[in-house]
């Protein structure tokens, strides 16, 4: 199978399916494009569907945002550890206070028209 493109990954995510690049040699997975595995340097790279749920590893509540999100503040930018252990970045809408989304909160990927990965509290 041809190497997954970022456009394919984005289109799949819009439908609620999150895919990572996966090293067929050692199993290392990356949410960002991987042509060479950083662990074993293999170029045998496939793809794998990731679980859609995980827990918040770290987050911030954005009060001042970049242009693409000016109508969404406040919201949370999150680093999520998915149930298979893969880390992924994303955002959670309508989070105004830190206490709304403590570290360890369970979240689920939702489909969205926006290009980034959007999660909601599970």
């Amino acid at each position: 199978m041809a190497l997954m493109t970022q456009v394919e990954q984005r289109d799949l995510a819009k439908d609620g399916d999150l895919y990572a690049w996966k090293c067929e040699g050692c199993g290392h997975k990356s949410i960002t494009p991987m042509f060479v595995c950083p662990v074993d340097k293999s170029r045998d790279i496939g793809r794998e569907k990731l679980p859609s749920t995980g827990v918040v590893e770290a987050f911030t509540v954005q009060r001042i945002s970049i242009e693409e999100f000016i109508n969404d503040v406040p919201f949370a930018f999150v680093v999520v550890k998915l149930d298979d252990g893969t880390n992924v970045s994303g955002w959670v809408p309508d989070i105004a206070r830190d206490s709304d989304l403590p570290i360890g909160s369970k979240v689920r990927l939702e489909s969205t028209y926006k290009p980034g990965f959007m999660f909601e509290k599970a």
Partner: protein
Amino acid sequence: MVMRDAYVVGVGATQYGKLAASLRESASQAALEAIDSSGIDIDRLDGAFIANALGMAEKQGHIGPLVMTSLGIADKPASTIEAACASGASAFREAYVNVAGGFSDAYLAVGVEKVSGLDTITATSYFAYASDFVYEGFCGASFPGLYATIARAHMAKYGTTVEDMAHVAVKNHANAMYNPKAHFHKEISIEDVLKSMYVASPLKLYDACPFSDGAAAAVIATKEVAEELGGPMIKISGIGRAGSPAALPDRNDITSLSGAKLAARQALDQAGLNIGDIDAFEVHDCFTIAELVAMEDLGIAEAGKAAAMVRDGMTKPDGERPVNASGGLKAKGHPVAATGLGQVYEMVQQLTGKVDAHRKTDAKRMMAHNVGATGGSVACTILEAMN
């Protein structure tokens, strides 16, 4: 393989802040100050590396030839170096490589930025473009947001508090009071920091460095040229350059910048020194949390222990381990691509004793730590006063 020693023979810097000068004017002013302070004939420079990250803010790319034209040496080559906020130290390193590698006897490095014409949302967006934008910016992260996420992880792992981070801001504002080129000359209190508005929780306005305009420059030359010029002998003893995965989710641990550890190790190994041999530090405190992480990555403090050193006053200019006696990015200011060369400027001022007594460190060996984005690019530089 280092072929020969290289020295910083001259440095220059503009005021940091909101400047009326254009990119080329600021760059040329800093370059001329560096050239004049070295005493070198301008025609002896073989070329320049010009650090500039956000030239498009002034609708100007390819800034190198403009600066060389203004300096009257349009026939000399100048290439732009871009490594986000680490552009300055990266340009410095490339100029060093030219001299140490035997290609040139004297080379110029300049860093320049001008962003004050941008509104806050546009500036915030431009800065975010230095992240892995598809996986961070498109997920809503601003640049402060990424460091806020690092801060949150550091707080969870080590118990770091918002007060700990505020101590960094207070110290650096106090130091900048005595730095005439600093963006801010305003003392602040812990309470001021904690009461300031949130930018991206847990970081508040006073946890963040400002958007600054400014330029800084250095002339690098061989030992023979340095001796001939007769100025202070400031040796480039070590220079490391490394990287980290660009996006936070690609990292095993977001409470540390792996590239900073590598770059520091390279610089120390080249210099034949240990971190304990370094007298004072200029680190990349774009946010207060970044100074704590830097101290831990460089080995000034054990992981999770930097905050206690700051609280105890150990990192003040008269403390055991001075950090950011210049005021740091936090208060001296952060003209993105100029910052790494501004750190070189500050190190030379400290090593030659040309600073106000309130922030004098008496250092003879210093290290600078310059970070691009959240650590995708890192450079560490060790300068040593040899006379």
